[in-house]
């Protein structure tokens, strides 16, 4: 009886200490989590208030003055619908290109032997280490002199070529060495017995790729797709170089419109920022698993 009591009080103490560490742990994590989210909250609050009310914030005045005028202003001011369309086309085309072409090349490098495959793959590895900024000047010159586009003649002179056009924006982003590499590594990690069995049954290489390998590489395809979409949607450097008007301007560039040398229109700017970040946030919240698994996959595979 006595020992039992002691034991009880001991475990009670242990439980108390455990509870305390639990409370501290959650408290700390919540504090850290909130401080990560605060900038987004500020963005939303600013975007939902009229410009003259930016200072002297109280929660009550915020709730009573909630309005969407900044969103309307942002949408009208900066041909945002055009930017959104351009960004969507850029991101979707890049994703389709990188996933499909990456899957094909990755499979070929991983499973099929063909003449020149080693040299080509070394080139892929080398270009993976090239900072994209190094290619800005050459790509600009190339696309400017693209033959028979944008008023150019056969030799690529006379017009503006593919500068400020959606093809010019998209073309250099259709294949990435990272995508090819990721797909190759993933293909290598799959068992080859299935493909061999199908080959014995008389299946052609295209059937094997399409019917057997492609379904097996789905996790890598989803990862690559998410990365490609996010990269293109968030891309700033390449559009900055290639886009000179609303023809091909993307959302990331469009946000600059609200900034003046002296006066920044914070309300509409934050509304535009919210519009820009919203699609990715939604995709992330619904597909969180794929993002996290994707980061883990590239962290261990690529």
């Amino acid at each position: 009886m006595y020992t039992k009591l002691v034991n009880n009080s001991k475990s009670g103490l242990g439980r108390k200490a455990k509870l305390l560490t639990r409370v501290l742990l959650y408290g700390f994590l919540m504090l850290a989590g909130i401080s990560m989210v605060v900038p987004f909250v500020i963005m939303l609050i600013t975007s939902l208030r009229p410009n003259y009310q930016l200072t002297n914030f109280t929660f009550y005045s915020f709730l009573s003055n909630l309005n969407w005028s900044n969103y309307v202003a942002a949408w009208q001011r900066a041909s945002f619908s055009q930017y959104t369309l351009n960004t969507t086309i850029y991101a979707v085309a890049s994703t389709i290109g990188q996933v499909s072409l990456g899957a094909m090349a990755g499979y070929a490098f991983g499973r099929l032997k063909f003449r020149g495959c080693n040299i080509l793959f070394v080139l892929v590895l080398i270009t993976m280490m090239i900072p994209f900024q190094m290619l800005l000047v050459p790509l600009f010159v190339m696309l400017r002199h693209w033959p028979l586009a944008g008023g150019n003649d056969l030799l690529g002179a006379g017009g503006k070529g593919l500068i400020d056009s959606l093809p010019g924006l998209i073309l250099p982003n259709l294949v990435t060495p990272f995508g090819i590499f990721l797909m190759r590594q993933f293909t290598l990690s799959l068992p080859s017995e299935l493909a061999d069995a199908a080959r014995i049954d008389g299946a052609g290489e295209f059937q094997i790729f399409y019917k057997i390998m492609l379904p097996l590489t789905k996790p890598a395809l989803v990862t690559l797709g998410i990365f490609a979409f996010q990269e293109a949607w968030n891309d700033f450097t390449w559009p900055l170089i290639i886009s000179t008007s609303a023809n091909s301007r993307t959302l990331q560039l469009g946000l600059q419109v609200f900034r003046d040398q002296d006066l920044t229109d914070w309300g509409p700017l934050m509304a535009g920022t919210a519009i820009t970040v919203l699609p990715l946030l939604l995709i992330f919240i619904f597909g969180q698993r794929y993002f996290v698994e994707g980061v883990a996959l590239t962290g261990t595979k690529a």
Partner: protein
Amino acid sequence: MRIKPNKKVGPVVRDQHRAGLIFVLMPMILFLTFAVYPMIYASYLSLTDFSFTKAPSFVGFANFSRLIGDDIFRTAFINTTIYTLGVVPTSMVLALFLALLLNQKIRGITLFRIAFYMPVLTSSIVSGMIWLWMYAPGAGIINQLFESVGLPPQRWLFDPNLALISVMIMAIWKNLGYTMVIFLAALQGIPIHLYEASDIDGANFRNKLWSITLPLLKPATFFVFVTSIISAFQVFGSVFVMTKGGPGYATTTIVHQIYLNGFRYLRMGYASAEAVILFVVIFALSLINWRFLRSDDEIW
């Protein structure tokens, strides 16, 4: 001499050869046109004087010798290095700490993960714009907070001494989640029986941390370290949006200089030379990454 279709190879292998070539044809045409050729062209341009309106004229290594004496480029290089040395270790330590905390039975882990990963989803432009507003000297929230606790308001991005640090703080906020997710994945990959065995041996929390967790995190740590350095060296968007490299040259970076020289002043040969320097730094870091990461894991 053409090699005749080899009878010894057999139809299956020949099929593979043909299929392989067809599979890589499209990707490789695009890849050679938009990655390999520009890379070679950029190296050539770095040896020329090129202003876009006229054809490039060969000048040998003149651009590089000018780079050595270029104070602005040196400032950009130093700024980029400070930025890297500040951002990478800080976000790694914080991310590891958070990952260790989250790697337990925790309720609402999904919510925490969303919160920490949200900044990763933003572009450098979006995060730059939001923090520009938070740093605003007049109505920005940071100065309002400072005033409410009695601290003197700062000019943040407009103060030559604080501008770079302000950009770095934003970058840490933005990168933390990505690093944390990698650490978390690595932590969850550690076999649980190692901990169980050490429990039997009577190891306490600190023993387990130092002799199991941290050593087994080495590959992930190294991966994160090198890839973070590589991306930190390419910092551009946030600087472009928040400070335009200023005040003065306080926050100009290598890529910012490449952009200005190449597309503002049309010194495209000079910009290419700067890009080659950046390439050398990043190539060296990537090689280190490969060398250490791949020793156990075959690429071929």
